[in-house]
């Protein structure tokens, strides 16, 4: 839906060279060796508080991660708050405190902020928009369109924690569990990866639409074929359980602390080692490869050795009923 909306409505009006790259951050040349990365994102999560995070933590991590996916070191963020009349000061304090904590974790400051209060019913509690600016070192060239045959595909851990964590926290599924969102700032991990390999081709965080959608977008933008080995993609037992129960496919679940990296095969092991040394990359692994065949398609080799296509998410995943 978002994909169609962007192409049918937003791009015809707003398109320009920077926007059309459609990466997580716009990359702005500065005339010197390094470039600037610039990005913005709005957060409307429900519920506002969930195990592993809240809207505040999410609004810092999400934007820091968008910068990091361009290979940028975040310089500063801005934050805009839209508060519904009557929103409790206590809750706001909790949100702000976790923003502070997340910003410290990421080593970034909130350099500008704005607040608006709208009347009751015009917003749902609290919406936050954050924007971020970062600097990309000379020689770093990361984009969703740079996947090449011979690349290894790496992910930094198991998928699905955020979406299932939030779904369970919503409380309308009659499910209880200790599933925590994976919400985390990934810039430290990315820096560690860049320090060992200057030639990372693609970095993306599989947020909404999940791993399947992000891989499909990369395959499409790069006109490359991607093969993923289902056996190598980790899904926690409790996430798998909820998926089986509701008829969800973990490949379409949103993550907030995961990244996929496309790096040349010969450098994959070195990058993997560097990732595993970072707390957010401890469960990292190689999950697939880029091939010449089937450009624009993502094939999943299933656990029984069959193949199926990984298509982008279309519509929503609904809990099944039987």
């Amino acid at each position, binding site marked *: 839906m978002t994909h169609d909306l962007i192409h049918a409505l937003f791009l015809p009006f707003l398109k320009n060279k920077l926007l059309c790259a459609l990466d997580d951050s716009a990359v702005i040349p500065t005339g010197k060796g390094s470039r600037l990365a610039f990005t913005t994102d709005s957060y409307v999560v429900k519920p506002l508080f969930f195990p592993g995070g809240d809207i505040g933590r999410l609004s810092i991590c999400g934007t820091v991660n968008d910068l990091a996916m361009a290979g940028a070191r975040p310089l500063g963020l801005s934050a805009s708050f839209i508060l519904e009349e009557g929103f409790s000061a206590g809750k706001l304090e909790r949100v702000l405190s976790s923003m502070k904590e997340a910003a410290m974790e990421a080593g970034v400051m909130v350099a500008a902020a704005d607040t608006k209060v709208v009347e009751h019913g015009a917003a749902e509690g609290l919406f936050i928009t954050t924007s971020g600016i970062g600097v990309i070192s000379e020689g770093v060239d990361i984009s969703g369109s740079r996947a090449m045959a011979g690349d290894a595909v790496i992910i930094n851990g198991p998928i699905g924690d955020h979406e299932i964590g939030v779904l369970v926290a919503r409380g309308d599924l*009659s499910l209880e569990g200790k599933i925590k969102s994976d919400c985390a700032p990934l810039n430290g991990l990315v820096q560690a990866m860049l320090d060992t390999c200057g030639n990372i081709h693609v970095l993306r965080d599989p947020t909404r639409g999940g791993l399947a959608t992000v891989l499909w977008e990369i395959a499409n933008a790069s006109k490359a074929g991607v093969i993923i080995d289902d056996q190598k993609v980790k899904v926690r037992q409790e996430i798998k359980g909820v998926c089986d129960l509701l*008829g969800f496919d973990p490949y379409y679940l949103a993550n907030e602390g995961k990244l996929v990296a496309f790096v040349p095969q010969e450098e994959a092991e070195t990058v993997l080692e560097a990732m595993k040394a970072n707390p957010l990359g401890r469960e990292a692994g190689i999950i697939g490869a880029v091939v010449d065949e089937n450009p624009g398609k993502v094939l999943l080799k299933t656990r*029984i050795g069959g193949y*199926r296509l990984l298509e982008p998410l279309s519509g929503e995943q609904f809990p*099944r009923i*039987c």
Partner: protein
Amino acid sequence: MLTQSKAMDEENIASIILKELSRLADGHLRFMEVCGTHTVSIFRSGIRSLLPEGIELISGPGCPVCVTPVGEIDRAIAMAQLRDVTLLTFGDLMRVPGSSLSLYEARAMGRDIRVITSPLDAVEIATREPGRRIIFFAVGFEATSPAIAAAVKEAMRKRLGNLYLLSSQRLIPPAIKALLSSKKVKIDGFILPGHVSVIIGKTPYSFIAHEFCLTGVITGFEATDILEGIYMLLCQKKEGRSEIEIQYRRAVKEAGNRLAMEVMKEVFEPVSARWRGLGLIPESGLKLRGGFKEMDASEAFDIPYKDKEDPPGCLCGEILQGLKSPPDCPLFDKRCTQQNPVGPCMVSSEGTCAAYHRYGVYHEGKRGKDTSRSRGRGKIDSRPYTRTISALP
């Protein structure tokens, strides 16, 4: 997460069964997986890409949302328009188009329509909101009915008085019988549903073997379960047997779950029901028994069922009978997408069209006749369809 060694086991088991399937396969055989959960598992695990030439899997009518006819959705929407009424239903049903609106659209227009995930939620809501008349629009097969029956009993026990059931529940064995009696589709055997059979056991399927001399295997939902189910069907063919067997032994007992069946029988009685595609099938639905009559929405509200046509061009009816496959439908992936579905098989996560749409099909060295779109060695289904934007929010 499967441990590495467990995962390896799964691939090894699959390759052993697949070798056996190749050895046993002889001629062209069509097996129907009745249940939508099987359809999804078959697509997700890529089973179609691995089966030997000549074994064809076709999807059946086992998706409760898909078989709910347009007229019943219209009736539920009409009830939701009444004063002080809250309509409750399961998620997938929300987006199925009625003749003019879906429940989702009706909600957007201000009707109080809510999604629940468990029948007991209905009792809770009715208790919490005594001033409203709560109608639970319940779809589902035998796997869901005992829980609905338990909710009805609980509402009676609590003497709620404001909870009504609009029952659109259906039974699987009568649908299989209707399908076979129609003789419209060639089927050599059935992969029978696991969840439904946990409740009903194997006896209700015995007509498949006795009256129609066909085979059936009650099968689990893991990929290796399904492969083993197909293997058991092939063994029966090879040995000239027609029996109902159970592959899903870890969950299904021959006699089913007596307690669950008793609750179901106490609360419901079989009644003729209309199925999308299959039409009116005797004793294939469930209605509340006399003692629970006061909770029956079809009696309490003066809104009769009216037959309505399926959407023009939509082949869901044929697809549910295994007569056609989604790519045969002129609307598939064109006018009918998951974002803007025309027929229910595209809406439901268990629907055949949704499975085709979401997972596509990849064939490795498959040359046999197949119900999917691509042919040839190692070729990908090319999806020559342009996804156009038909509905922006």
